[in-house]
């Protein structure tokens, strides 16, 4: 892999073991700024665990994660969010009792400035005071973010805007996935990790999501994608990485990976039937 510019995200020998099982086994990965790399592989291949290692929800047993050439291995998720890494979750983790608006505003939390002065030690107490007193600067910041949320939600057409004040638990499954993506976008991420954004979506919803991801990519956002729907993966990805049993078994442009005999054996063999089942169930 001869990258001329240093990659935005780079993983070296990333490894995570659970007891006797090695869920992620020496993964190397480079993601250039503005690029989109997809990770595919059968269920249990270690894709989500890899995401957890990158976003700080889990710590690797070995290996290194570098973001913008800095070592961020084992940093807390709060810290990584502040550096511009946003993610969505495979099983959907919206804040059920919060409205759509509030869910997305939480995404912008790391961008709060007026209400969260960067003062050591007494910072939290100042934050409490400012939240209660709400001087003009705090009000303006909140207003600006609320407007911004509406712009983000408008990306999803009429899916979310009419439901902006509804609690997230009342939304359909697909809409919850959309709220998660909107929340991630509100962080203004420099790196976006999408974990199966189309899981449980029907073909037309999937097409919509695919268009959105393509749009984000065209806007220059750097994306790491886990996805089972190969059609979407092939269309969007600059490069595809195939994982099986924690290991990377193939890497390259979509077409090349698709014809790789190891991949056909490990993934497509049982993976295709799995995808078919999923689609007939949806």
């Amino acid at each position, binding site marked *: 892999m001869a990258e001329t510019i240093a990659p935005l995200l780079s993983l070296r020998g990333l490894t995570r073991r659970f007891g006797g099982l090695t869920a992620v086994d020496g993964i190397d990965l480079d993601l250039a700024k503005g690029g989109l790399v997809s990770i595919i592989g059968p269920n249990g291949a270690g894709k989500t665990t890899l995401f957890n290692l990158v976003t700080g*929800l889990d710590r690797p047993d070995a290996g290194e994660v570098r973001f913008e050439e800095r070592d961020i291995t084992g940093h807390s998720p*709060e810290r990584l969010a502040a550096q511009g890494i946003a993610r969505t979750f495979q099983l959907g983790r919206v804040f*059920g*009792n*919060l409205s759509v608006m509030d869910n997305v*505003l939480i995404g912008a*939390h790391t961008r709060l400035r007026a209400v969260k002065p960067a003062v050591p030690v007494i910072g*939290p107490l100042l934050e409490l005071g400012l*939240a209660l007193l709400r001087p003009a600067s705090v009000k303006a910041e909140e207003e600006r973010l609320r407007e911004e949320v509406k712009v983000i939600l408008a990306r999803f057409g009429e899916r979310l805007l009419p439901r902006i004040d509804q609690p997230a638990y009342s939304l359909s499954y697909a809409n919850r996935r959309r709220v998660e993506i909107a*929340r991630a976008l509100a962080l203004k991420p420099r790196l976006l990790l999408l974990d199966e954004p189309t899981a449980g979506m029907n073909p037309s919803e999937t097409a919509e999501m695919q268009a959105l991801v393509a749009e984000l990519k065209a806007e220059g956002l750097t994306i790491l994608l886990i996805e089972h729907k190969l059609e979407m993966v092939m269309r969007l990805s600059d490069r595809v990485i195939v994982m099986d049993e924690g290991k990377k078994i193939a890497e390259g442009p979509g077409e090349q990976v698709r014809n790789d005999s190891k991949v056909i054996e490990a993934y497509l063999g049982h993976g295709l039937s799995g995808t078919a089942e999923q689609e007939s169930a949806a």
Partner: protein
Amino acid sequence: MSSWLDYTINGLIVGNVYALVAVGLALIFGVSRLINFAQGSIYLVGAYIGWVAVVQLHTPLPLTIIFVAVVAALVGLIIERFGLRPLQNSVRIAPLLATIGISFVLDQLVMLTFSPNPRALPSQLPDVRFEVGGGTIGPLDLLIAGVGISSALLLFVFLRYTKLGWAVRAASQDRDAAMQMGVDVNRVNQTVFGLAAALGGVSGLLVGMYYNQIDTAMSLQATLKGVVAEVVGGAGNVPGAVIGSMLLGLVESYGVAVFGTSYRNLFAFLLLIVVLVLRPNGLFASARQAPPEPLTGTFIAPSRPVRIPRWALVVAVALFAVLPLLPVSFYVLQTLINAWLLGMLALSLTLVAGTIGQVSLGHAALLAIGAYTSALLSLTLNVPVGLAIVAGGLMSAALGTILISPSFRLRGHYVSIATLAIGEIVSLVILNWESVTRGPIGISGIPPLSLFGYDLVDPRTVYWFAFAVMVVLALVQGRLLGSHLGRSFRAIRDDDIAARAYGLSLNRYKSLAFIFGGFAAGVSGGIAAHLYSYINHETFNTQQSILALTVVILGGLGNVVGAIVGAVALVGIPEMFRIAAEYRILIYGIVLLLLVRFRPQGLLGTI
């Protein structure tokens, strides 16, 4: 050195008793991921059934044990069938709250049947002591050891060699998979509750005989000790629970040897906090386990809050404000003053338990800190009362947050256990730190409420003062909920992992919630101290913590108006019907159970 051997033997015997409770808790936790707060009540029932058998029926010892085990098992089965099974598909907080409600109901029923006075439960064994190595041991010690060891063996055989035992183990490893393989999970639950209750009941009997005294306060103590032992050993880990119990028995026994009996419980709870902080999975859990599966369900019942129009609130506040001008009795004002004080505590708890989802069972400790601070400042340093109350609030906010902070990394039921223990620790420190708190004597002659030099002794002015303070606290809390902090707190409650992934620091926001909530509770305690003029370490007890929790759930978790409505309802309605004090806690327990079963979102809905 002989005394050390005695302390060791005593520690192991007491450990054996704890083991009987803790093993039951571990079995239940293993199968249903529930910490059964009613376990101590079954232990209490066991002790009193034993008393009936020994003193009234004159049964021989083996028959007494069997009788107690059978009755306790029946109680366990009833709890499982009617208290918990209906909640299987409910929110995760529901079964926990239900066991708290059940424990209050059972304790009160025992108290109403047998009176709260302690009774003697004579041991049916000869009172002789054998010399062993330099220490002594009696037949009862041997019996307790024998029952402990043989129950452990029987349990081992049952879990390992019977079909039902396999089912129990399968269900505790993976409930859904076990169900799919045809395991009847209801039957497993019944078995486990029956077994746990039988062990708990026998344990109560043996402890009663050991100390030759039983009383209704045993229940909470047993629950606490059992939970400590279980958590130390690793929740759900049966052999771990046995070892944790022995360890707890020894720590307590040696602690008593060095520092005296009033420190016994302090060591138990400190051990719990240390283990929870350093090894929340217990001493024997493997250090690195797979991270818990993401849970998408929330701890709080989803609901839409009832919208109350602003004018209605204004009218209600105005009505309550002019109430003292109307011809109402002193008694009504007194009752409402109590409601306002409880309302302040409920505001605090609804923020902590409802808004940010840390279900605290030790909230009365915050009252105590505020009350002692305010009382001591005004008494010994002549600080004006108004100022002292504010200082009490600030002290509760600061000290409360520092004390609770070890529990910030815990979740769900563990937070409840930790706060319960911290509450007990505060009360024990007040009892033992005599140079400052005057220990068991308490503080008397606390100056009455006053503001800017004017004494507030007339019930009407006291009423207005308490009401005004509560309304101001409620307004400020409402404003907090409308800010980005309200949003952040609720996000942490709904899903702390997603919240962290979006940059919300749990320590920071949990601290802020406890600082804010601690202030309100401390002010409530401070006002109460000057109102009562006498306080001691038992003035603010666990019953008050549970009452506050019932108020908060009644009103709707996180709901500011709901907290106040709940306080007025739970203080006012029993007064209205002139219900005798001893029945009130029974009613609170029943109210809690009914709410959890039929309206977990409370009257006005979760916010």
